[in-house]
């Protein structure tokens, strides 16, 4: 078992060189206190000194933010110059000779410090920042010994604390008005929620128009809290628990940005999560989920003891691990004996680590002896895998996040980064503020269309379900107006396929004029947007689930790749095709061979050589035919031929479309094994419950949307006694295929051994480098920043014709509206984790957005109950009247189970991958005054399940 505390990987205090690194190839040599140092041109004197090991006292400067020069503590003397310039705002010059410590400087600094301290409470011993306060440290460093002004003059000591945020408090009496918080909110986060009001002595920090933080524009990213050098802005957890005494670097378990964090601990107690300045995906920034919403890990709802039961109407029985595993294995084997070896399967989770996902597919292909393994990525990004593999030869995004800083024109299609990928959205907004152009294609007016200091140049507000019509019209414009990059196409792409595609796309039926009746986007706008993108030096496309979760999801992904190839936007910084992944490890779970048709590294089962390689390593025979996908498993269950399912960390009963069909399928199975942190909706149908472990309780790796493999490190022992990979190995062993690893690093070694694109990956390398972007092997030992540089992964890029095929989910007289779905910033997926944290305060319930004109004709008012009915089912939600959606379109989120958003979504799916069409459902809406029949049933079932829990759960 995995509880060895000696293995904890710890790091010291975070470095702070005072100002951001300079990005220059030229270097400059200078001397600091007599020591010579060479630094890049554009470096500040403050940073150069810090690099030379000289700490110049400072308060308003911090490495993450541009220098401001307001505190006057970092004064230095420069030979041949008069006065005392501020080191943070003075850039180095060749041959400079700098003195950082002289009697005169010491005196000046003490004077400045004295002024600060005269207006600061002197209760250091009881202050929450005690031990982590830059004001305190700096007072010590400058040798402050007396404060001549007395403390009775005008001061701010009586200012009131704002404790409205659930996560941090704002105590203005401790504020030194260094404006680091303001700059963090502006520069890092891009929300511009804070201001310095007033001047001179009267100046103070305020959240938008002096509101409490909770009611202001603040999105609780925590950047200001990290930036604050005093206790003014402090995490409530630090106020409650005190200062952490150790830190472990790990990776956020929420979204596909994959931010690196310092988990700061006191013993086994997590005090706070602080974004890691050296994190390659986030560079010290974070969002509210990763920064603050980790409380679910210790929530009382956590189940920590394995449980079994004979049938789903019985009470659960708490048992030992040995009993639970033996019971699960015996039931699966009985099913296989009775219904055949292919009657069982497994679903792995994009929330679990690479190592955990890898062992699940290995167990299915060895112990189960079939290919019935799928992952929840099926329902989000499977079209990305199919589409990019077909056109480019690799199922992954092509860039790094940092690449956006070189983009001239950015297209965002069917993604809402400020809510779903907040840290990347902040970086994108930074680039937009520098002047990059933005084209948004989305049925809804997402926040990026207009946000502080940025606005989209075009918002192509298309009808849901018409993505392919739009992308074809964009490509048609590029071709018909002669805007393509002919050199790129000629040298990099398959000529024959290009000719076929060119003929297809040039047809009049794909023109913006012909398509505008379908998309609802004026042809002139489409043409202008296409010209903007094609004319950009660097054009980058970012897309999300609004592209994939359609009946033509795969077609759309290929359409995007076609457009990017035609304009030569591959193989360098600032360009590319970039899928924004939803869950943290969507990329990784796909990489690890979780699909029923392919082995790790996206190699098809029919590829004999690959199969043999695995067969030899695993000592089994692998079936060359694909197995069932998730929806096929459900259909087969209803038909009575698929009877056993092992589900790792997924809540299918809530997250998958057409809830009633899913429930019928789960109910038909003879053995459902659920492995999760909580008794989720799916567990209502389970016969075996295996308690999972949170990302804080195990070692492993996640792979983010940039193909970046980052370490997840154990900071506390697993509450249930077993990490998740150990559970899968135990089940496999009990089923007759022994699987033994001493540590997840051995699983990664096996992946590296069997997968060419991972050949150079190991835990030792990850420790050295911090993170690695695959492909990482002999040809690129340090990983791969940009894909397809000299040639595409498949050799020549393949243009694929993408005919627009209308979805079956179109509006008609019975269902005249189109419902589309999305998410909010504060909640995550089905909300199992975030609903169990104070993030709940930000998003109490799912609402249905409706345009005021649609609402009016139906007699629906803001906040009233609305019935939403599709051909699949009916649910009831509260209305929110808004012009963010167009007339004819409804929008909702799916974070709360009782909302039943998926009761109305249908089984319609992407033609190539069966990724469900979440983004379009034809519905009717009408005012109601009671919950739907489904919701009444839901309440009743929820109550029943609670009663079936063993009354005293040890653990």
């Amino acid at each position, binding site marked *: 078992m995995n509880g060895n505390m000696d293995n904890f990987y710890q790091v010291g205090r975070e470095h702070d060189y005072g100002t951001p690194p300079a990005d220059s190839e030229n270097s400059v040599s200078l001397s600091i206190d007599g020591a010579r140092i060479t630094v890049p041109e554009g470096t500040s004197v403050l940073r150069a000194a810090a690099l030379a090991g000289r700490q110049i006292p400072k308060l308003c400067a911090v490495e993450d933010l541009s220098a401001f020069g307001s505190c006057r503590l970092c004064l230095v003397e420069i030979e041949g110059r008069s006065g005392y310039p501020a080191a943070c705002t003075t850039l180095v010059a060749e041959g400079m000779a700098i003195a950082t410590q002289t009697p005169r400087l010491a005196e000046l600094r003490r004077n400045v410090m004295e002024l600060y301290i005269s207006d600061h409470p002197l209760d250091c011993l009881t202050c929450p920042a005690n031990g982590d306060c830059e004001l305190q440290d700096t007072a010590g460093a400058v040798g402050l010994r007396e404060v001549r002004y007395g403390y009775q003059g005008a001061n701010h000591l009586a200012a009131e604390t704002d404790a409205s945020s659930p996560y941090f408090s704002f105590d203005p009496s401790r504020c030194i008005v260094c404006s680091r918080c303001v700059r963090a909110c502006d520069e890092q986060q891009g929300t511009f929620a804070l201001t310095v009001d007033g001047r001179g002595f009267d100046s103070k920090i305020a959240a938008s128009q002096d509101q409490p933080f909770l009611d202001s524009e603040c999105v609780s990213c925590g950047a200001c809290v990290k930036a604050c050098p005093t206790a003014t802005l402090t995490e409530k957890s630090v106020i409650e628990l005190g200062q952490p005494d150790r830190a472990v670097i790990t990776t956020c378990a929420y979204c596909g940005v994959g931010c690196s964090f310092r988990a700061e601990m006191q013993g086994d107690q997590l005090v706070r999560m602080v974004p890691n300045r050296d994190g390659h995906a986030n560079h010290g920034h974070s969002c509210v989920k990763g920064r603050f919403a980790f409380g679910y890990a210790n929530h009382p709802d956590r189940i920590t003891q394995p449980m079994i039961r004979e049938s789903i109407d019985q009470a659960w029985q708490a048992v030992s691990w040995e009993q639970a595993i033996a019971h699960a294995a015996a039931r699966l084997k009985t099913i296989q004996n009775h219904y055949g070896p*292919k009657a069982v399967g497994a679903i792995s989770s994009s929330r679990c680590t690479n190592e955990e996902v890898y062992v699940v597919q290995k167990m299915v292909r060895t112990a189960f002896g079939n290919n019935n393994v799928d992952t929840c990525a099926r329902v989000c990004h499977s079209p990305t895998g199919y589409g990019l593999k077909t056109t480019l030869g690799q199922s992954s995004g092509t860039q790094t996040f940092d690449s956006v800083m070189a983009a001239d024109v950015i297209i965002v299609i069917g993604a809402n980064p400020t809510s779903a990928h907040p840290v990347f959205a902040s970086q994108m907004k930074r680039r937009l503020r520098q002047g990059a152009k933005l084209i948004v294609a989305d049925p809804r007016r997402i926040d990026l269309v207009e946000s502080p200091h940025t606005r989209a140049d075009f918002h192509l507000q298309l009808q849901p379900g018409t993505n392919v019509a739009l992308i074809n019209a964009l490509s048609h414009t590029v071709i018909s107006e002669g805007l393509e990059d002919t050199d790129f196409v000629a040298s990099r792409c398959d000529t024959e396929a290009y000719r*076929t595609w060119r003929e*297809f796309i040039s047809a009049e039926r794909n023109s913006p004029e012909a398509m505008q009746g379908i998309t609802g986007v004026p042809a002139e706008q489409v043409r202008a947007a296409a010209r903007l993108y094609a004319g950009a030096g660097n054009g980058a496309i970012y897309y999300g689930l609004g592209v994939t979760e359609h*009946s*033509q999801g*795969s*077609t759309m992904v290929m359409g995007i790749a076609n457009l990017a190839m035609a304009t030569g936007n591959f193989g360098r910084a600032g360009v590319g095709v970039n899928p924004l992944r939803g869950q943290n490890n969507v990329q990784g779970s796909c990489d690890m061979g979780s699909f*029923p*048709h392919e082995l790790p590294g996206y190699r*098809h089962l*029919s590829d004999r050589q690959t199969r043999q390689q695995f067969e030899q390593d695993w000592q089994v025979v692998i079936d060359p*035919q*694909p*197995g*069932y996908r998730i929806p*096929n498993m459900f*259909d*087969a269950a*209803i*038909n009575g*031929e698929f009877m056993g399912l092992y589900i790792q960390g997924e809540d299918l009963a809530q997250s998958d479309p057409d809830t009633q069909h899913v429930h019928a399928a789960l109910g038909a199975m003879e053995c459902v094994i659920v492995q999760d942190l909580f008794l989720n909706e799916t567990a209502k149908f389970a016969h075996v419950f295996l308690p999972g472990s949170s990302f804080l309780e195990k070692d492993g790796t996640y792979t983010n949307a940039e193909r970046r493999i980052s370490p997840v490190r154990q900071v506390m022992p697993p509450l249930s006694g077993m990490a998740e990979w150990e559970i899968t190995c135990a089940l496999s062993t009990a089923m007759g295929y022994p699987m033994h690893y001493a540590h997840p690093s051995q699983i990664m070694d096996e992946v590296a051994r069997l997968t060419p694109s991972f050949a150079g990956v190991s835990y030792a390398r990850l420790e050295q480098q911090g993170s690695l972007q695959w492909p990482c092997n002999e040809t690129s030992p340090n990983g791969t920043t940009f894909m397809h540089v000299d040639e595409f992964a498949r050799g020549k890029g393949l243009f694929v*014709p*993408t*005919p627009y*095929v209308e979805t079956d989910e179109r509006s008609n007289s019975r269902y005249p509206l189109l419902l589309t779905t999305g998410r909010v910033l504060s909640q995550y997926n089905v909300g199992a984790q975030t609903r169990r944290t104070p993030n709940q305060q930000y998003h109490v319930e799912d609402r249905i957005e409706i345009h005021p004109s649609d609402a009016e004709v139906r007699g629906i008012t803001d906040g009233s109950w609305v019935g939403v009915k599709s051909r699949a089912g009916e649910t009831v939600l509260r209305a929110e009247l808004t012009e963010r959606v167009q007339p004819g379109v409804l929008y909702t989120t799916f974070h709360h189970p009782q909302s039943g958003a998926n009761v109305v979504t249908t*089984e319609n*799916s992407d*033609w*190539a*991958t*069966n990724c469900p069409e979440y983004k379009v459902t034809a519905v009717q809406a009408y005012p109601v005054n009671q919950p739907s029949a489904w919701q009444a049933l839901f309440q009743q079932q929820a109550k029943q399940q609670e009663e079936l829990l063993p009354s005293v759960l040890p653990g």
Partner: protein
Amino acid sequence: MTVNIDKLRKMAEQITANMAYTDDQTVVASKVADHLNRFWDPRMKAALRDYASAHSAELSPALRKAVMQLDV
């Protein structure tokens, strides 16, 4: 009996429609067959083939051709 044949038919026709950028039915059929062979569980392919042998008139011409090329 295997999985719901109406669903399989619908899925197969959806694949066919998305491959139908050319009028050449032979090209479309071979693309459809290749897709089904690569991604469908053999039980689903067999069910579709069995259905096609009795009701071929109900399938689109390209799909009818494709079914003959299934590897089950």
